[in-house]
Structure formats: C-alpha cells, structure tokens
C-alpha cells in the first residue's frame, strides 16, 4: 500500500453581501427568534449583482491551493447545482482562472451532497494513479434559485464556496480518507427541486415550470436523518470506528435540527458536531468544506472526522477522514471565524 490519500489543503469563501435575520424580518413574515430557533441560521451571505458561482469557486480554490502550498493539480472538480450557465460546465473556467492551464475539469451535480460525491471521484483519481492531486470545489449561489417571498427557503440558504486539495500524503498522515458510502433515490426527486430551466421545460414550450427552489421540509428532514445516519454507520464500519471514537462530525449544514438528530441517532455527543450554518446558512455543495475550514483551528493530527451529506436527487453519503499532520489552521471569514 502506498502513502494515504488525504487532504493537502482547504479553503473557503463567502461573497460580500451580508444578510442578517433582522434584514429578512423587514421583507418576510418571520422573526429573528423564529429563524434561529427553527433553523439555527443567524447570518448568510449572497452574491452581489454580476457575481456568479465561478467567482466564489475561484476564490475558495485559490485559498485551498495556497493552504496546500501548491500551484498545480491534475484535475479540477466543481460540485455545483447553480452553474454559471447550462453550457459549458463551470470547472474549466475556474481551472483557467486559477492558472491551472488545460487540466481535466468538470462539474458534479449532486446538490447538497455534491462535495462528498466530488471528493469520492477525486480520491478515486488519486488512488488509481490517474492524478497526483485534485482540486475539489463545492460552490453554489443558491440565491439565484430562491423565491425571495418563500420564508421556508429564503431564510435558510446562503451563497459560498469551499475547497479541498486531495492527494497523497505521507505515512505520518495516518490512513487518510476511508471508503465513501454514497446513495441516491430518484423516486424522491420531487422533495427538493427547481422544476424549470432544463430540457424538460424547454421540450414543452408554453408550459409553466417554476424557476424557484421548492422543498418538502418535513419529508426531507426524516429522509435526511435516515440516510445520513445509515451511511455514517456504513462509513464507520468500513473504517473500523465506533461512534464514541469520532472526534468531529462535519455534516451538510442544512439545519441545526437535522444535525442534532443525526448525532442523536448515532449516539455521538452533540459537542462533536461541527456547526457553521449559524454564520453562513445552508450553502449547499459548499457547506461541508466551509464548515471544515471554519473548524480547522480545533482539528488535531490524528482526529477522526466523519463527513455526511444529504441533498436533492435525493442523494446522500458519508466518509471518514483521519486529519493529517502539519496542516495549519485557516479561516473563512477572518480571525473571528470559529
């Protein structure tokens, strides 16, 4: 067996338009107390006019490369559900703007599970010898698909990007990534959906297809807890971990109540669940790498990290990672990040 496939660097970025719960109170029939208590979100950031997903992805990617001390990778994978355009994918432009030349670059669309799906692909590239290092970026500008009058979704989502460089470490880094346990259920496609904008809508001109995100909150909640807990058990089993050994759970930051429920079902203490959604909202594919970056100051070499996500599709997944040696702490928002 060669050196472990692990994380060589991480980085995150959120755009400049800061939206507090008090700001939302002025436009929606809601209150700061209601949003905080029911979702856990206090602040989210949104793109300015003219700003798009690739702009966020480039900045997060630049920070992750700098954190890894690298100027080159062999592949760029961008996990996004809100690409700059239907055609082409977002990754090639991101790779070029990062000065990575003509490397392989493509998008992965698994909604909020996108980062874990992309990390699984990246890990496989490295393990097979097809690449020595892969830049994985989760980036979404969900403000582009939100109905600003829908208080069930408008209060939750924020825009952002998070990134990780995945490649071979050294024996001192421990085992690195464990097996990825990914899943999907196309029967539940309607739970989280933007009906319009695709080939179905274009094939039926004149028919109405909504352009905004629609989400069946309660059903999503139960499906998410079931799928995340089940995939976490599989990932822990593959790694030979017991729940009490997990140092950090870095889950998709959908809702504080879902994260808490997953911890409850797995019997992992809530104190080990990384919570970042209060500061940036649900940033879809960006949420896991953003949360990891924000938590980096408290990660120690050898810490056992359990990742899990659930998103539209529906899709879900979990994976384990032993935090490598010598990765310095970094931040998303600056000194007061975590």
């Amino acid at each position, binding site marked *: 067996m060669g050196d472990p496939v692990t994380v060589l660097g991480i980085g995150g970025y959120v755009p400049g338009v800061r939206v507090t719960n008090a700001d939302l109170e002025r436009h929606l029939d809601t209150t700061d107390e209601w949003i905080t*208590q*029911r979702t856990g979100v206090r602040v989210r950031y949104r793109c300015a006019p003219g700003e798009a997903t690739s702009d966020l992805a480039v900045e997060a990617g630049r920070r992750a490369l700098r954190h890894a001390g690298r100027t080159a990778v062999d592949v760029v994978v961008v996990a996004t559900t809100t690409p700059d355009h239907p055609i082409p994918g977002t990754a090639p432009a991101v790779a070029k703007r990062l000065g990575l030349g003509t490397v392989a670059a493509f998008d992965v669309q698994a909604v909020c599970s996108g980062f874990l799906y992309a990390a699984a692909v990246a890990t496989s590239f490295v393990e097979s010898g097809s690449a020595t290092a892969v830049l994985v970026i989760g980036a979404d500008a969900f403000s582009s698909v939100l109905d600003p009058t829908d208080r069930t979704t408008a209060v939750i989502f924020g825009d952002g990007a998070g990134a990780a460089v995945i490649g071979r470490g050294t024996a001192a880094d421990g085992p690195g990534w464990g097996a990825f346990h990914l899943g999907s259920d196309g029967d539940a496609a309607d739970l989280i959906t933007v009906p319009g904008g695709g080939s179905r809508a274009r094939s039926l001109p004149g028919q109405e297809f909504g352009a905004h995100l629609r989400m069946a*909150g*309660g*059903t999503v*909640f*139960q499906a998410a*807890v079931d799928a995340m807990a089940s995939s976490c058990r599989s990932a822990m089993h593959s790694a030979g971990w017991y729940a009490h050994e997990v140092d950090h759970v870095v889950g998709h930051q959908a*809702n504080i*109540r879902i994260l*808490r*429920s997953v911890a*409850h*079902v797995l019997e992992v203490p809530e104190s080990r669940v990384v919570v970042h959604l209060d500061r940036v909202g649900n940033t879809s594919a960006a949420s896991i790498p953003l949360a990891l970056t924000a938590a980096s100051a408290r990660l120690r070499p050898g810490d056992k990290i359990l990742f899990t996500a659930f998103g539209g599709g529906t899709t879900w997944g979990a994976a384990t990672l032993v935090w490598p040696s010598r990765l310095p702490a970094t931040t998303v928002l600056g000194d007061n990040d975590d």
Partner: protein
Amino acid sequence: MTDTEDLTYRDIADTFNRHFPDFAAEVDESTSFDDLDLDSLVLVELSVVLLKQYGVRLAEDDMVDARDFRTLAALVNERRRSRPTRAAG
C-alpha cells in the same frame, strides 16, 4: 417502564421537554402542539427521538394529525402493540 407498558401523555411530554429545551413547557392532558407553537419540523424532529426511544416510526402527517400529547401517546402505544414480536433466542 417495561417495553410492553403503555405510555401516557406525561411520558411523551417528558421526552419532549428533555430533548427540546427551547420549547420546554408545562404540559397537561389538553395541551396541544399549537399551544406550544410547534411547527411540523419540530414534530418531525420529535418523531426521530420517538423512533430511537420507542422503536416506532411516525410520519410527518401522523405527528401533525395527532395535534396533542395524549393522542400522540395513544398512537405510539398502538404502533408498539402492532409491531411484530421478535422471536426469542
């Protein structure tokens, strides 16, 4: 409490208050979910706790339709009774 003993509204209310300190309240037999301003997501989260604690799966509609702790306790009891008995050994 044994696995076969029926739950009362008080058992469910105690579980609720323990897991949801933000919403914890004095609950009596006639307290409804509306009285405590519990929306469907809170009720779904409660269903996750009940599944873990009592082994019964309740859908979002089951929770919302129950409307109060007494009816919810009766529903949990009914589902527990209708569970297939596990073979010994």
